[in-house]
C-alpha cells in the first residue's frame, strides 16, 4: 500500500471510528513538556500529542500488567484466565520505534515455545500505531543499540507528523484494512512529503547519535558484557556503587519481564496472580533454606546486564535493550546504562 497523507482533524475522525467501543491509549504532553501514555476517551482526541519522543511510561504495563490474575482454582472459572482469555480491543497510538521493538522482544518471552494466552490475546486485539520521534531526549540512545527513532516495519500503522500534515503508512494487513475502510479520510501522499519524511528522520538519527557521542559505546555488546564478567568494574564500589536496589530501572524498562506467581484466597476459592518482580531484589533469588545464588548486589546488578546483552542474544537472537533511556531517568542513584557499557568496553573508570 502507498503512503497516505491526512490532516490532524481527519486523523482524529479516523481514530474515533477505529477505536469504537474499544480502548485508546495515546501520548499526551503535560505542562512541563513531558510526554505520557494515557488512556483517553472518545472526547479527548484533541489532547493527543504526536511530537517529541517516547513517553515516560511504557506500554508494557498494558500487555504485561504489574499485577494480573492468571488462574483460578480449585476449579478454573468459565471465563477469564482459565477459560478462553479475551482481551479488550485497543488502539495504541504514539508508541515509538523503541517501544515497538520492546513488544517484539516481549513477544519472544510470552509467545515463543509455551504460549501465554492472556498476553497473546492482548497483542492480537490491539492495533499499534507508531509515531516518528521528532525531538529526542538526552537519555535516548536507540541508534547505539540497533534501533532507531522511527519504525520501518512491525507496526499496523505508522504516523509521521510533517509540518501540519500527517503521513500515514500501513505495515500490516490489519493496518491496511483500517485505512482502506476509511479511505475518504486519506489522500495519496505526494512525493515531496515522502522526501521530507526521509530528511526529518535522518536529522533525528543524527541528533541521537550526537547526544551519545561522548559515551563511546558500540556493538557488539554481548562480547563487552561477557568478556568483562570478572572485571573489577562490577565490584561493589564499581558500576553498582550507587544502586539502592529500588527496582525503578526494571519497572520503567519496556523489556524487563521478570515476574512471580502469587496465590491468595478469593470468593471461597483461590486466585493466582502474576506480579512484576525485580532481579535486583535479594528475595528474587531466595531459595529453600534461605539460600541464594546471588547474595551480593554486584551479582544481581550484573545479571541485568548479562540478561539483556548476553542471554537474550543467545536465546532469542536480539539484545533486550531498545535504547529508550527510561532507566537512566528513573535511577535515583544516577546510574547511566551507557556509562556502564562504556566502562565495561574500555576497562577504564568513567567519571560520574
Amino acid at each position, binding site marked *: 500500500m502507498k503512503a497516505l497523507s491526512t490532516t490532524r482533524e481527519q486523523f482524529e475522525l479516523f481514530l474515533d471510528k477505529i477505536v469504537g467501543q474499544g480502548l485508546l491509549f495515546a501520548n499526551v504532553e503535560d505542562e512541563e513538556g513531558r510526554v505520557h501514555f494515557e488512556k483517553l476517551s472518545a472526547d479527548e482526541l484533541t489532547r493527543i500529542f504526536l511530537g517529541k519522543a517516547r513517553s515516560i511510561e511504557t506500554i508494557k504495563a498494558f500487555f504485561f500488567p504489574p499485577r494480573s490474575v492468571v488462574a483460578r*482454582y480449585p476449579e478454573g472459572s468459565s471465563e477469564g*484466565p482459565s477459560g478462553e482469555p479475551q482481551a479488550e480491543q485497543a488502539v495504541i497510538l504514539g508508541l515509538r520505534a523503541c517501544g515497538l521493538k520492546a513488544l517484539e522482544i516481549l513477544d519472544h518471552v510470552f509467545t515463543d*515455545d509455551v504460549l501465554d494466552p492472556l498476553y497473546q490475546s492482548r497483542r492480537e486485539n490491539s492495533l499499534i500505531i507508531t509515531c516518528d520521534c521528532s525531538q529526542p531526549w538526552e537519555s535516548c540512545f536507540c541508534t547505539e543499540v540497533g534501533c532507531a527513532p522511527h519504525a520501518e516495519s512491525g507496526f499496523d500503522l505508522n504516523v509521521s507528523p510533517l509540518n501540519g500534515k500527517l503521513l500515514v503508512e500501513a505495515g500490516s494487513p490489519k493496518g491496511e484494512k483500517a485505512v482502506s475502510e476509511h479511505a475518504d479520510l486519506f489522500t495519496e501522499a505526494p512525493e515531496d512529503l515522502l522526501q521530507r519524511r526521509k530528511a526529518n528522520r535522518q536529522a533525528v538519527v543524527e541528533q541521537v547519535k550526537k547526544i551519545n557521542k561522548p559515551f563511546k559505546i558500540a556493538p557488539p555488546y554481548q562480547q563487552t558484557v561477557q568478556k568483562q564478567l570478572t572485571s573489577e568494574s562490577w565490584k561493589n564500589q564499581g558500576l553498582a556503587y550507587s544502586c539502592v536496589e529500588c527496582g525503578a530501572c526494571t519497572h520503567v524498562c519496556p523489556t524487563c519481564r521478570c515476574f512471580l506467581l502469587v496465590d491468595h484466597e478469593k470468593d471461597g476459592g483461590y486466585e493466582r496472580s502474576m506480579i512484576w518482580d525485580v532481579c535486583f531484589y535479594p528475595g528474587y533469588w531466595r531459595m529453600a533454606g534461605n539460600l541464594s545464588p546471588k547474595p551480593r548486589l554486584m551479582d544481581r546488578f550484573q*545479571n541485568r546486564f548479562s540478561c539483556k546483552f548476553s542471554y537474550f542474544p543467545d536465546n532469542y537472537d536480539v539484545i533486550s535493550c531498545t535504547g529508550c533511556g527510561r532507566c537512566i531517568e528513573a535511577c535515583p542513584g544516577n546510574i547511566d546504562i551507557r556509562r556502564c557499557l562504556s566502562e565495561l568496553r574500555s576497562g577504564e573508570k568513567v567519571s560520574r
Partner: protein
Amino acid sequence: MAENQNPYQPTMAELVEVIEETPTIKTFVLRPEPPIPFRAGQFMELTVPGLGEAPFTPSSSPHRPETMEITILKTGKVTDALHGLKAGIRLGLRGPFGKGYPVEKFQGKEVLVVGGGVGLAPLRSLIYALIEEIDQFKRVSIKYGAKTPQELCFRRQHEEWAKKRSVEMEVTIDLPAPGWDGKVGLVTTLLDDLDIDRENSFVVSCGPEIMLKFVTLKLLEEGFKPEQIYLSMNRNMSCGVGKCGHCIVGKYFLCKDGPDMNYADVMDVPDLFG
C-alpha cells in the same frame, strides 16, 4: 503442554498418604486424575491452596504414574505448611517441567548416582527408572550421604536396591554417631579410587549446591570429563516455562533446559554454585 492451554493453571490432585521419612522429611503421595506422565528428573510445581507454589521433582517411579510421590524437606513457607497436612485434602499440581535425566544416553554405560540429604528424592525416581530396565545399563552405583543416621532418606530401600542385580549401594554419614557402624565421612569420600570405567560411564548428582560443587571437583580429579557429569541444579522456579526469569543460570533457564544440567554446558558460568 497443549497449545493455548493456560500454563499457570494448576490441576487438583488428592493427597492420599503422607509418609514420614525422617524427622524433617516427608513423602507426599498424590493421586492426580488423570495421571500425569513424567520423566525421571522433571519437576512439578506443587500448590498449597492459597499459600503458593514451590518446585519439586517427584521421587516415585516414572513407570508408575497413577500415584506421584514427592519427598519434601521442611525448610520454608510452603514446605512448613505441607508438613502440617494430612491425607484427604487436595493440592494443586502443574507440570511436568524441564527435560529430565537423559536416561537413553546412559544405555550400555555405567551410571554413578551421587546424592546428599533430601537430594536422594529426585534420584530415587531415576534409580527406579534405571532398575526397571537394568539390563540396559552396565551397572548402577549409588553413593549417598547424609549428616546423621536419622537424616538418611529412604533407609528401608537402601538394602532392597543393594540386593538388585548390577546395582551397588554405599552410604555414609558426615560424623560418627552412636549405633552407626557404617561409613563415616562426606559423600566425596565414597568417590575415592572408584572402580568405574572412566570412558564408559555417566554421573548424576543431586544435593545441596555446596555438595554439588565438591562432588564435581572430586569427579574431575578422578578423571571424569565435564560431559559425563549431570547436576540437578536448584533455583526457585516460579513459572516453569522459561518466562519469569528466576531460574536463569548463564543463558539457561533451569526450568526448561534443566533442572538437570550437563556440567560441560554450565561450567563457565561464574559463581555456578552460589
